[in-house]
């Protein structure tokens, strides 16, 4: 391959790799919104917590991030349910503002708590099972990034299968469709909401653990990813798992390709611009219903 094509392909690959991570993060965000019309503004901080959990598991007990994935996912599932029970449940009938601000407050709280306890220092998990990189035809692929992408794809797949092929999954979707009806069908919305939070944070937990294998860990790390996630969620249509997943990948590619072909510093403008463009033409997003 000529140098130019190699560069282009390399860029495309990098875009895809980061895109998958965006995708997984967005999936959790969209699930909560789909089921209960609430945007979790603390989503980035939950990602941050997941990364710290992974870090502590690694430093205190030498658990490799790869093995930590299920543990962290479990921990965050619990955290999700807890968050719902302690916080979200209280604002279900509150005005939208309160709903937005409750999770926003959570964000401020968690981020600064992390700063207070664990300081601003950057932490990184040194050697993991997935350290290193592959080279194919002059294209480089970081193993951790690759693993993360695969993990992201698998997790989303599993989630999708669960929603489509299990009773609970249906119940969840029914609740998303229409709470009254779901209620009449004898589904307890409360349980579904709690479940949604659990699953959402579990998936962000997976993302965090995988991300921790190659991304430095610090209190603001969530902010770096979450804005993109919002865009992905809206782009894919609030509540649509597939939508968020695809949108996440699209954004990854657009960002990296655009940055390479255009001015890198305008990457963000590109992403948000496209977002605005699409929602103005199609307010329900790419895959959004109604």
């Amino acid at each position, binding site marked *: 391959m000529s140098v130019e094509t190699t560069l282009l392909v390399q860029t495309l690959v*990098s875009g895809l790799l980061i895109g998958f991570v965006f995708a997984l993060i967005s999936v959790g965000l969209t699930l909560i919104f789909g089921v209960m019309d609430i945007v979790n503004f603390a989503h980035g901080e939950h990602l941050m917590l997941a990364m710290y959990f992974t870090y502590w598991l690694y430093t205190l007990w030498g658990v490799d991030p790869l093995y930590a994935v299920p543990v962290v996912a479990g921990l965050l599932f619990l955290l999700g349910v807890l968050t719902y029970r*302690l916080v979200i449940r209280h604002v279900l009938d509150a005005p939208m503002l309160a709903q937005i601000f409750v999770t926003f407050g959570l964000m401020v709280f968690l981020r600064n708590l992390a700063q207070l*306890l*664990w300081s601003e220092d950057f932490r*990184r998990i040194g050697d993991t099972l997935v350290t290193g990189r592959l080279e194919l035809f002059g294209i480089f692929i970081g193993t951790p990034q690759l693993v993360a992408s695969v993990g992201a794809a698998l997790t989303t797949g599993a989630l999708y299968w669960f929603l489509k092929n299990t009773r609970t999954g249906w119940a969840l979707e029914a609740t998303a469709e229409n709470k009254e009806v779901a209620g009449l069908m004898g589904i307890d919305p409360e349980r579904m909401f709690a479940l949604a939070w659990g699953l959402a944070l579990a998936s962000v937990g997976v993302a965090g653990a995988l991300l921790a294998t*190659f991304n430095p860990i610090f209190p603001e790390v969530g902010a*770096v990813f979450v804005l993109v996630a919002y865009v992905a969620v809206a782009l894919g249509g609030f509540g649509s798992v597939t939508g968020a997943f695809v949108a996440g990948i699209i954004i990854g590619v657009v960002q990296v390709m655009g*940055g*390479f072909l255009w001015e*890198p510093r305008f990457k963000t403008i590109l992403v948000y611009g496209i977002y605005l463009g699409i929602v103005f033409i199609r307010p329900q997003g790419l895959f959004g219903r109604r």
Partner: protein
Amino acid sequence: MIRRSKLLFTVVSLAVVLAVMVAGCAAPAAPGPAPSAQEETAAQAPAGSEAASEAVNEILVGAIYPLSGSLAATGVDLKNAVELATDIVNNEYDLNLPLAKTAGLPNMGGAKIRLVLGDHEADPEKGAAEAERLINNEKVAALVGSYNSAVTATASQVAEREGVPFLNPESTSPTLTERGFQWFFRTTPYDKLFAENFFQFLDEMKAKGYDVSNVAILNENTLWGTDVATLENQYAEEYGYNVAANIPYEANAADVSSEVQKLKAAGEAVLLQASYVSDAILYMQTYKQLDYAPTAIIAMDAGFVASEFVETLGDDANYILSREVWALDLAESKPIIKAVNDMYKERYGTNMNGNSARAFTGMLVLADAINRAGSTDPAAIQAALMETDIPADQIIMPWKGIRFDPETHQNTLGSGIIVQILDGEYKTVWPFDLASAEIVWPFPKWSER
């Protein structure tokens, strides 16, 4: 029911907080400012107004630093440094530093300096507010600070308005000394000089027979990075180097592969990079992942000299060149550095770094001026600052001394050094006569390390 759930919530949330607190204390890197800081601020709160009256045997100096928020860690270093300097001034120490051998300020009957701290959270507006407060409420005689160039800008603007001397030991944005301020003084050499150093260094490398004609410029595009890039471009032209690529990027990115791809596309070049720590680390990882190895990476300190940089990257951090203002290994040619660093380490548990060393020096310079002024009258202090002339052997910096330009009030004797990370340690490699280690050049290919 409601009541119960409320209670439950409060109890649990408290429990959670406590739990995490405990967990946090277990964490190695938990921040804990030195106790001395607490007494100080505790004393400061009530004191304030009456301090003005007893100003005779106590001179108040305000220090404005990012003590909380995202730069808290750095802020604490800086605070410790000015505290140490104050202590050296106030008590007798056998050190060859201004005012060390005497207790307090001899010209003012041994009056002692008391620091009053201000926290600006890296926010220019808050910086200005603190300057306002320290000057008017605490009645400080002068100010030091404030690390972030943007904050220094606004805080010194207040000082300029109020007519109070503002000594800036560690902000390097060129614009600061180009405002024609009467009350603003800067001891640290600034980016203009550092940028020029790069090309002087490259010329000397050329002289040694290495091929360096292309440079690529990569900078985060906030205040600081932009300034740096502008200067580097200027000097590249002046010194006749070809700028192969010029890439400003958005700080705190999640992914920088497109930037790195652009660099690769630019081909062989010496990379001049200006990044804060999160980006610096991400870039190094991406360089490795995409196998990008330029002729050399010369960084404009910041992220590349932050303690996390080496901690996080380990061996991957090696061979990075960075401009510095200070390095511990300078002690080999300047013993005073060791003496001071030992005191610092004993009190605060860490070694000094470029920031603390500069803050320390700045505080001494200010104290020296106040002493020579012989009063707390701002005008007198300002005049004394203008007269400042401290020889090289009385400072812990690798400078030729301290003397302020009558126009810009920029220290004209400052100079920078270039360090290289070798086995995880910062070694001075330039100027060659101060070097404590042999420079590794060019930057080794990733596959060969």
